[in-house]
């Protein structure tokens, strides 16, 4: 028989689909009878959904400028490399 405390420890194993059959059945049975644990499992899921709402930090103007500069350098260098590689092929 699972205790409520047990349920709070294996809840993520359950939501990740990693509980073995017997253990899963025992948990389902417990959840069917225990509103507190149903709510706990539900709240863990909600926590994950809420985490998804956190926005990524915005890039600063300085960082955008840095990256634009690096990109321009790369295009110059990579363009040069591609051109010289083409010449080599022609030479062969």
């Amino acid at each position: 028989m699972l205790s409520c405390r047990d349920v709070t420890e294996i809840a993520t194993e359950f939501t990740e689909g990693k509980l073995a059959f017997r253990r899963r059945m025992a948990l389902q049975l417990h959840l069917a009878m225990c509103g507190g644990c149903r709510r706990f499992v539900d709240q863990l899921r909600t926590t994950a959904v809420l985490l998804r709402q956190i926005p990524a930090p915005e890039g600063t103007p300085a960082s955008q400028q840095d990256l634009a500069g690096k990109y321009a350098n790369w295009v110059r260098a990579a363009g040069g490399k591609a051109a010289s590689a083409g010449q080599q092929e022609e030479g062969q």
Partner: protein
Amino acid sequence: MLYFLLSLVSLAALAAAKSALDEAQLLQGLRSRDEAAFAGLVRTYHGSLVRLARQYVASDAAAEEVAQDTWMALLNGIDRFEERSSLKTWLFRVLINRAKSRGVRDQRVTAHVDIDAMADAASVSADQFDGRGMWRSPPAAWGNPEQLLGDHQLVALIQAELVQLPPQQCRVVTLRDVEGLDAAEVCELLQISEENQRVLLHRGRARLRQAIARHLTEGASC
């Protein structure tokens, strides 16, 4: 409640499919030296890269630097880049490697990251259970999910609590829940076992659940 969550999940799947399509286009653009494609990729991922880097290195400036190095690695490897993994996971992998060596230099990465799976052992504090392990005080209701999702103060609180988690828990929760990667990707990126990943995820989510509960019940008593 369950139905609502399921519909959110399918929305996320739809968004993922759409972003995979956009991503292929942007990569193609990058190969043909289209500056707008680069800007588009940076807009999509740079914030995530800086945020993850910050979990390894000691300052915002160092995190920004590591993220920029990662972009240069993509540009320099773009003609050889194969879309076997998603671009996002590829970027994260390169970023973590760089951030780690940078973190070692700055002495931010220390031994405790390995043991934080064991840290703070209970998912719910022991005093909420009676002697037989049954709820003494069951969790209180949180109100309806639509309302929670629109609560910017709550999201800000979760964001603040997230970075307070032990480092490895914070990384797993960030990659799984904030960034939406799957378990296998996170195991590979952090080089941890599946079980370890699950324990870290559980500890992290349980701790955040507690913080949310505290916030919502405090709010109710005001």
